[in-house]
């Protein structure tokens, strides 16, 4: 049995397990201690507590110095006070010192209103800064997806933990010391020249405006105002499960209907759904899976298994940078964003008699890596990208606010046809485990020729970083692996590299939780219950759908009949598949 300890915080007694920190104990009895560098996503394997910022200091009876609550472990009989005059004074001093080396451009900062430092200054009632700081400046670094403005860095190092420990990407590290200390790629190169995958988890946890996404919302506004352009929008599944948070709704509130209404009010000519393309992905990827599986079962020794999903651009960049030797293992199917773009700019443009250059495709994504993905050369035709702009859930909320749309009172609306029709299988692409469950629903029926009685594969669901499950394909056992978070993906990839992988198929998502925890989502401020609530909402949307298997989407059938032929056809390959590159940096020429 776990040993327990009794302590008192602000005269309230609390019993905790041995090893609990004062900060965690206080949270247990709803005593809020402010933190800046500390960050934890409970049950999701994300923890960062360097004890560096000293904002969380508390008074402990019998101890001379104030103690940082985020790293101080409780001891029996401990008597803690979290809000004495001495504590508040120390906190103010700490925050004032941080502010003395921080720009004062809050009003025009991208993080205005969502910045942890700003909130801290507000909560502490700071009206004056008694210290003259260095106001150190660094050059701004803009990449296709992420902007680094290190003047605003407070050296909390949360991004460093995400990039190195959670994602094992190793693009960012704390460098130099004193006022010159900053978080940067090796040799202070631009992010673009580092192994950065643009997963955006650094952006998702940055407490200030030091790391933000490249904002394309103004380009979208300009396109909407241009009478020559037909503007088409697609929305990713995870967006509808999180957008409401930006308008004060409880986490996990589904806003699919309000979102489509808002997009129409913003002036988009066609409001479509990335989910349609997710169904299409299942047709292509599922066919590829079955094809490889059948060859394998027929004794073909050259066939590459396991097959890996390829929907997530952060993950694609990860294996291109870190495991280029495995680049022929992932499915060649493009991501839903890119499949949508290709179908819109070819099939749909033809259908409405438009030149593809007059069609502007905008995607709303929970992701910052999608900004990079859309800019990849292979996804353009004569310089015209299949997806012209990709904006995050957060950017969409800004557009809605700018247009003074009263989001909360909007009537529900529906997506347009044909590219707005989707199934429950497509919706669950938004969470870890969803893509492989969707693929299983379709692959099972095609492989066995039988009707799937129960479409819910509970064994594939959950929040553990690495999960495995077996699915019975009518006597044939299919072994499935799931990883979310690139550090977890790395473990499965190392196994594949060593020939030890037991799986037939693996789903990988770069972000913890999958797209619901994406770098472009409303900020979770370290509260993992928000991500879990979004996951619940995704499964709720799936359960409420009339059609829950991708291959039963009538407009997918129509697309194949009218245009593509069948999954894996030459035309499908041309428009819906891709290839990968070795992007590993080598300094020593071999």
């Amino acid at each position, binding site marked *: 049995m776990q040993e327990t300890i009794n302590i008192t915080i602000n005269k309230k007694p609390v019993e905790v397990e041995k090893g609990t920190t004062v900060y965690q104990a206080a949270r247990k009895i709803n005593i809020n201690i402010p933190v800046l560098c500390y960050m934890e996503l409970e049950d999701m394997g994300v923890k960062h507590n360097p004890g560096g910022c000293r904002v969380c200091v508390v008074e402990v009876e019998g101890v001379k110095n104030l103690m940082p609550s985020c790293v101080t472990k409780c001891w029996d009989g401990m008597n803690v006070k979290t809000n004495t005059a001495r504590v508040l004074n120390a906190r103010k001093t700490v925050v004032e010192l941080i502010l003395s080396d921080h720009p004062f451009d809050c009003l025009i900062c991208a993080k205005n209103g969502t910045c942890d430092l700003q909130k801290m200054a507000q909560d502490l009632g700071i009206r004056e800064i008694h210290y003259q700081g260095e106001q150190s400046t660094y050059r701004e670094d803009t990449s296709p997806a992420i902007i680094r403005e290190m003047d605003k860095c407070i050296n909390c190092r949360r991004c460093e933990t995400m990039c190195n420990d959670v994602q094992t990407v*190793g693009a960012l590290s704390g*460098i130099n*010391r004193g006022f010159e200390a900053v978080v940067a790629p*090796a040799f202070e190169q631009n992010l673009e020249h580092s*192994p950065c995958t643009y997963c955006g988890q650094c952006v998702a946890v940055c407490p200030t405006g030091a790391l933000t996404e490249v904002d394309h919302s103004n380009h979208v506004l300009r396109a909407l105002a241009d009478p020559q352009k037909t503007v088409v929008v697609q929305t990713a599944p995870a967006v509808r499960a999180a957008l409401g948070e930006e308008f004060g709704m409880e986490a996990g509130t589904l806003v699919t209907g309000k979102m489509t209404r808002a997009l129409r009010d913003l002036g988009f000519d066609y409001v479509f759904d990335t989910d349609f393309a997710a169904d299409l992905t299942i047709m292509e990827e599922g066919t590829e899976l079955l094809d490889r599986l059948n060859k394998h079962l027929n004794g073909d020794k050259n066939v590459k298994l396991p097959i890996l999903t390829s929907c997530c651009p952060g993950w694609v960049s990860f294996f291109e940078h870190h495991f280029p030797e495995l680049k022929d293992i992932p499915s060649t199917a493009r991501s839903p964003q890119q499949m949508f773009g290709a179908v819109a700019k070819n099939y749909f443009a033809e259908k409405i008699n438009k030149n593809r250059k007059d069609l502007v495709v905008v995607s709303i994504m929970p992701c910052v890596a999608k900004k990079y993905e859309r800019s990849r050369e292979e996804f353009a035709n004569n310089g015209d990208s299949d997806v012209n702009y990709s904006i995050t859930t957060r950017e969409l909320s800004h557009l809605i606010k700018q247009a003074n749309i009263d989001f909360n009172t909007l009537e529900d609306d529906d997506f347009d046809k044909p590219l707005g029709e989707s199934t429950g299988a497509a919706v669950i692409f938004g969470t870890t485990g969803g893509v492989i469950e969707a693929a299983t629903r379709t692959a099972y029926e095609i492989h066995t020729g039988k009707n799937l009685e129960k479409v819910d594969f509970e064994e594939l669901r959950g929040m553990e970083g690495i999960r495995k499950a077996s699915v019975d394909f009518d006597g044939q056992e299919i072994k499935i692996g799931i990883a979310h978070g690139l550090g977890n993906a790395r473990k499965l990839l190392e196994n594949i590299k060593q020939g030890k992988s037991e799986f037939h198929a693996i789903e990988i998502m770069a972000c913890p939780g999958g797209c619901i925890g994406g770098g472009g989502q409303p900020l979770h401020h370290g509260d993992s219950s928000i991500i879990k609530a979004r996951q619940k909402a995704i499964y709720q949307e799936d359960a409420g759908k009339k059609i829950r298997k991708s291959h039963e989407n009538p407009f997918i059938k129509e697309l194949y009949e009218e245009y593509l032929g069948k999954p894996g056809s030459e035309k499908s390959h041309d428009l819906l598949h891709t290839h990968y590159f070795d992007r590993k940096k080598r*300094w020593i020429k071999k």
Partner: protein
Amino acid sequence: MSSVKVELHQKDVDKIKEIAKEYNNDPEALINVLHSTQDHFGYLPAEIQEIVAEETNVSIAKVYGVVTFYSFFTMTPKGRYPISICTGTACYVRGAETVLEEFKRQLGIEVGETSENGKYSINCLRCVGACGLAPVVMVGDKTYGRVSPDGVSDIIAEYEDAE
């Protein structure tokens, strides 16, 4: 931090691999590996850090982070006669700063830089354990105690005729 571009030969690469192996390619031993590598090559240019990163299984960004954090590590080659001025507490209060300024003035280089002819470089140290001799200056392995700004030209003169 600026760096010098170098072209590494296979034997240099092998040497770094050998050093890393001495420490079992352990990520925890990064600082030791960097120490030994700098001992051998005299400095740690980007190309060398890249190999150290690979051999110790630490990201190149982290390696660069460590190299830029500790003043002992340098990305520029030191001079043949590296001058180290102790600016630890004892030396500092006894005037190390003025001695340092005099070296910088006479040689026309800043801390962490190397003179154009490659002969001298200036670095600061934190306490060499000879506080009784403060302020202390080292040139290579040779130690000079109770140095005053007036004595700087005599120290430099000792090396002027040397290669």
